[in-house]
């Protein structure tokens, strides 16, 4: 790589995540468990990778290979047990639906609640409010309590909030398919538009290889918490499919 290469947006170094330590317990069982050994499950076993600014990375791997754990770790919901995650000062958000919604309040009020929870200021949200309500396209319902919404309207509004209030690094756990056919297309296109932005870095977790193939510039293949390969989708996806097939035969 030459020195005028693009900036690195995200560096993960030797990332380990364990599920242990804070284990659910009750007062009774904590007396008894003193003798027992605590079971440790290692979800990520020393993952390292870099991602350049503006790139779209797809993470693939079978169930339980640590994909979602990694996304949550990058989003700051888990802290690394070992290793580091460096975002180089960028803002990150996990694209997720309906965070912090209060169902008894109107859609409009929920835009603010959800947006502020994602770290935006009131003024920033006020600026984007029109755009969000237009995109959600649920008409008069925006001023009615969310509990009166159909599930389609609910996800439309939720998607509109996360899609329009954008951060530098977006993490997407399973590309969303919400609403009716028309909205699905619209949201898919919006998503494409969002992630193909030059400066936006995106990490996508998906089981749909066609989605990954279409959207991503780079693929990271995880298996049992370890990186198998990172690189060009065209090279890795066939090998991954081969691997999954051989698993099935067993």
């Amino acid at each position, binding site marked *: 790589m030459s020195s005028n290469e693009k900036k690195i947006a995200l560096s993960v170094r030797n990332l380990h995540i364990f599920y242990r330590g804070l284990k*659910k317990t009750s007062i009774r069982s904590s007396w008894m468990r003193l003798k027992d050994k605590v079971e440790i499950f290692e979800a990520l076993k020393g993952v390292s990778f870099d991602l350049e600014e503006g790139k779209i990375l797809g993470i693939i791997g079978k169930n339980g290979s640590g994909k979602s754990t990694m996304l949550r770790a990058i989003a700051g919901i*888990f*802290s690394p047990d070992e290793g580091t995650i460096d975002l180089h000062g960028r803002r990150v958000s*996990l694209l997720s639906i309906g965070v*912090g919604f209060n169902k008894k309040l109107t859609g409009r*009020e929920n835009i603010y609640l959800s947006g*502020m*929870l994602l770290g935006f200021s009131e003024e920033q949200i006020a600026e984007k409010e029109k755009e969000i309500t237009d995109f959600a396209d649920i008409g008069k319902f925006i001023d009615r309590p969310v509990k009166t919404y159909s599930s389609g309207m609910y996800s439309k509004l939720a998607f509109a909030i996360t899609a329009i209030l954008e951060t530098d690094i977006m993490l997407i756990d399973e590309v969303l398919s919400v609403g009716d056919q028309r909205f699905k297309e619209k949201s898919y296109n919006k998503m494409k538009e969002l992630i193909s932005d030059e400066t936006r870095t995106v990490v996508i977790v998906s089981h749909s290889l066609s989605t990954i193939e279409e959207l991503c510039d780079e693929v990271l293949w995880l298996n049992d918490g370890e990186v198998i390969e990172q690189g060009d989708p065209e090279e890795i996806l066939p090998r991954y499919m081969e691997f999954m097939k051989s698993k099935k035969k067993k």
Partner: protein
Amino acid sequence: MNKFFSNIRKYHKYAIRSAKAELKSEVADSYLNWLWWIIEPVCFMLIYTFIFGYVFHNKTPYFASFVFIGLTAWDFFNRMVKGSVRLIVSNRDLVKKVYIPKYILLLAKSYTYLFKMGISMVITFCLMFAQGVHLSWHILFFIPITIILYVLTFGIGMILMNYGVTVNDLSNLINVFLRMVFYLSGVFYNINERLAGTLCFVLLRVNPIAMIMNEFRRTMLYNQLPSFKWLAAWLIIALILNAIGIHLIHKNENSYAKVI
């Protein structure tokens, strides 16, 4: 500690909005709406005043106001303690999806309780006026006493919130404990009259909520100066509890999502 204050600054507006949202949604679908915030404490006051004033012949002066002051302080303490134990679990969806400093959740909750306490305080003043309590400038001491109550419960709340995540039956234990403290705090009787000697001293000093209730009553009803020494002592303890709570939450908050 700096992290705590910068987080509070950053998320303060969210906490306020979230508190408002919760209050709004609380009354959104009940017919009497916000009137419940007034009716509820008044009804409880009437019940306690009737039972302990008439049935048990309590001769404490201004008994209705006396009970109401106790209830105001107790309700705030009780709600905070009960609310904090299950706070993380009841916000499961949120905790699993975004990062937010966890004491912000407690802060938002505390604002809703503080608001209700404010209403309760206003009713108290009305009641005191109606009962012809002699008012003096001592009444202003309710402000610093309220602050100490708030800081103390916030510290306890943070610690309980942390352990409430991992210890399943902490809320059962806390319920029993709260009931005990409720009866020991003299919400509806005057500890000074009913008990004497060491027990009275211990109950009124070692039990912070009884101490705070007593100080409220002394300054608001009986025109006395508060006991600065004990208020200061509990303020120091409260600050230590806060420091412990902040430390626990900073240390563990990123693992909560793994457990719930």
